[in-house]
């Protein structure tokens, strides 16, 4: 009986210890589960922090890029404005360059010869080809006769001078005259040219260029036309007068030389 009791007591004891072990294991498992959950939480939180930091970093980067983009856009619009300005300046420079080329050629040609007829021909060429005149007259003032003598005419312009007329006023005042009439309209009145340019040497008027009509395609004056008129006023006058004087001096020299040779023959 006692032995049986002892076995039962030991079995109860073992069962109690086993239950305690079971309880302990369950507790351990539960703690393990809790800790794993906690680790997962911490891991998630760490990742979240990391993501937030990355987002902050990216946001900062985006802000920086946006600033850069803004700066680049500003720079681009500045460059575009500069580019437009340069293109405008380039176009102006090209026009100026062409104008200077026209003036250079006209001036070069006017002073390229001392032959009077050639000089007159060049003046006529400039008036037709560079200015675009159709009917005109180039006239020199004969101070002894007090009248204008045409040295070249194209069309019907002859330029009679009436004291109260346009041509007389240009000679008197030495200032160019430009009519308000549209260039497509021609003038048939020799006293009323559309344009009258004085030929001047040091302010002294030696003649005029009177233009009565322009080529059909010439609808308006450009800047270069006014420059050419100015050039003709000065350079054509000098070229015409110097070639005229040169021709006269050549003739005089020839006459004198012949006379001297004749004298020599007579004295021998």
């Amino acid at each position, binding site marked *: 009986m006692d032995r049986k009791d002892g076995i039962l007591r030991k079995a109860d004891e073992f069962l109690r210890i086993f239950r305690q072990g079971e309880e302990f294991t369950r507790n351990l498992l539960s703690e393990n589960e809790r800790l794993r959950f906690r680790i997962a939480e911490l891991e998630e939180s760490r990742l979240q922090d990391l993501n937030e930091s990355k987002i902050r970093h990216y946001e900062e980067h985006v802000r920086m890029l946006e600033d850069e983009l803004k700066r680049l856009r500003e720079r681009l619009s500045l460059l575009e404005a500069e580019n437009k300005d340069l293109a405008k300046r380039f176009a102006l420079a090209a026009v100026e360059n062409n104008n200077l*080329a*026209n003036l250079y*050629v006209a001036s070069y040609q006017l002073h390229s010869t001392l032959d009077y007829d050639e000089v007159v021909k060049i003046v006529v*060429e400039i008036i037709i080809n560079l200015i675009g005149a159709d009917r005109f007259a180039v006239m020199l003032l004969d101070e002894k006769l007090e009248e204008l003598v045409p040295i070249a005419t194209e069309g019907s312009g002859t330029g009679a001078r009436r004291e109260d007329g346009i041509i007389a006023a240009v000679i008197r005042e030495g200032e160019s005259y430009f009519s308000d009439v549209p260039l497509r309209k021609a003038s048939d009145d020799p006293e009323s040219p559309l344009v009258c340019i004085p030929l001047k040497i040091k302010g002294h008027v030696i003649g005029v260029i009177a233009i009565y009509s322009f*080529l059909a*395609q010439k609808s308006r004056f450009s800047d270069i036309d006014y420059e050419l008129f100015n050039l003709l006023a000065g350079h054509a006058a000098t070229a015409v007068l110097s070639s005229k004087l040169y021709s006269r001096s050549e003739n005089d020299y020839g006459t004198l030389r012949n006379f001297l040779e004749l004298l020599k023959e007579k004295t021998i």
Partner: protein
Amino acid sequence: MPTILVVEDSPTMRQLISFAMRRIPGSRVIEATDGVDALKKLSSEKIDIILADINMPVMDGLKLVSLVRGNSAFKDIPIIIITTEGAEEDRKKAMSMGADAYLPKPIQTQELIRLVTEQLGKR
């Protein structure tokens, strides 16, 4: 390197056109004083484009155009007519004879350079 033949009897216009043509990069300019002179230059030089006036002594620009177009060696050379004749019928006449472009005087050199560059680009 394009070779440009300028056919013009007026020395002023010849110089002005040549001056403008020399501004085309790499261009070489040859001058002729009339149609006959131009034909001589055509047979001795390789010409890429012709700029010709209409009113010239000896042989005018229109006659030159018809002779160039009638010659198998030169018929494809572009020709630009530069003249004081600004009327539409003059332009039509020049174009019907075989000119490629027509520019009335007084010329705007930028316009001339643009036309020449355009014609050279078509070749």
